């Protein structure tokens, strides 16, 4: 598949974009990464995702696909050869999708709350909620991996990609809060999994270093404060 047939509109710091990158890497698909300036959205982005105007957008041939989980499913179905990203069994697929939805809708907002917490009390309360969620994910990992290294078993799969691409932000959160979020005394299995995920070839170079994400966050906060000040 020629690189020009597959384009990814994205932004490096986005874990949702990173998911698509890892999925394409796992399938050994060549693609053109077209970085987007989210403060000044391109014609191409607005045309390709008119409903949400967000990244990632995968453009395959001339067909755009939006929403990271929809795109990962699409990649798995179009390039259906090994490795499969989703499990073969429908019940295992349902379990993976359930946890993907939990991670996106429930757990990641908790991490955001923790990173944005302004005082020690709310930080501690937010941390407690994050750890509660991680305990659920630890159990999910143990059940899903069946003794192997990844949620997907022997190899990286859908749920590894979904959770794994948040690891940059989790590490950035640890720097910002001074707390250990992935803690081997609390969720040892996930700590081991995180190391295996980040050192996997398909992930290499995709997720920005935590320091880069911390700078990015600070830059965004400054931009938001400036916009706030200028609108007053």
């Amino acid at each position: 598949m020629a690189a020009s047939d597959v384009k990814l509109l994205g932004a490096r710091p986005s874990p949702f974009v990173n998911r698509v990158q890892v999925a394409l890497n796992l399938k050994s698909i060549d693609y053109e990464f077209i970085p987007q300036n989210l403060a000044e959205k391109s014609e191409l982005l607005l045309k390709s995702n008119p409903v949400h105007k967000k990244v990632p957008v995968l453009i395959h041939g001339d067909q755009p696909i939006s929403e990271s989980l929809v795109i990962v499913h699409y990649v798995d179905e179009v390039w259906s050869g090994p490795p499969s990203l989703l499990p073969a069994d429908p019940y295992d697929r349902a379990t993976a999708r359930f946890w993907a939805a939990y991670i996106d809708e429930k757990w990641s907002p908790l991490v955001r709350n923790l990173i944005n917490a302004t005082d020690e009390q709310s930080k501690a309360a937010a941390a407690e909620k994050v750890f509660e969620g991680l305990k659920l994910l630890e159990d999910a990992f143990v059940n899903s991996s069946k003794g192997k290294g990844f949620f997907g078993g022997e190899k990286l799969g859908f749920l590894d990609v979904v959770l794994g691409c948040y690891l940059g932000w989790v590490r950035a959160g640890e720097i910002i809060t001074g707390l250990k979020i992935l803690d081997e005394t609390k969720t040892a299995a996930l700590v081991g999994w995180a190391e295996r995920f980040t050192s996997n070839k398909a992930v290499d170079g995709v997720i920005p270093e935590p320091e880069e994400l911390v700078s990015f966050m600070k830059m965004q906060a400054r931009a938001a404060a400036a916009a706030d000040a200028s609108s007053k």
Partner: protein
Amino acid sequence: MEEVKLFGYWVSPFCRSVEIALKIKGIQYEYIEEDLTNKSPQLLQYNPVYKKIPVLLHNGKPIAESMVILEYIDETWKNNPILPKDPFEKARARFWANFVDQKCFPALWKTIWSTSEQYEQNKAEALERLKVLENELGGKRFFGGDSIGMVDIVANFIGFSFRTIQEALKLDVFTEDNFPKLWEWAENFVNCSPVKKCLPPQDKLIANFPPAYMGKTLVSSFQSRLQLPPPGGC
């Protein structure tokens, strides 16, 4: 032997989605109505993370979250598919199902719980969402084409319950004038045989959303009985 059970609640559109899919596939199932103020031990056991309905139990294995359940049903029982076969069309269907679920339903729901001060703003948001949907429907009979598919199923609230509640509360969000294509879709949708069998009784819906209701603060027990997001929570 297949054993299929559905733990549900009569008014929940998320449960209706699952039932419509089961009916489309002709799957025999046992329906268990939950009392959301007194949830059964089975529900708490089968959905410990959220403790919510719907939960589908297939041969003793529980699946929670309506969108996850719909995909499971389509992958397990291959007759009368609710998702297209082509990967791009399938991706489109999933995109629009997410849009209905995450953008349309909350916006419409907010209009129902609006105080009179909030109503115009909430209505404006709902109208915007419905407009996007109307454009997407275009000239198609259903979002799924000639027959109903996942997007139509997930939009069941728009098709039936919302119009009933809207009429009871004298709201003017989803009107035939504003959205002629969507209105026609709704008429066709509620007359589909699998859908007809699943709709909550109209008089019961109206009784639970009396006209005197709009703009009043919710009684918390009523709110939890409905197990649907409160005004601020959408």
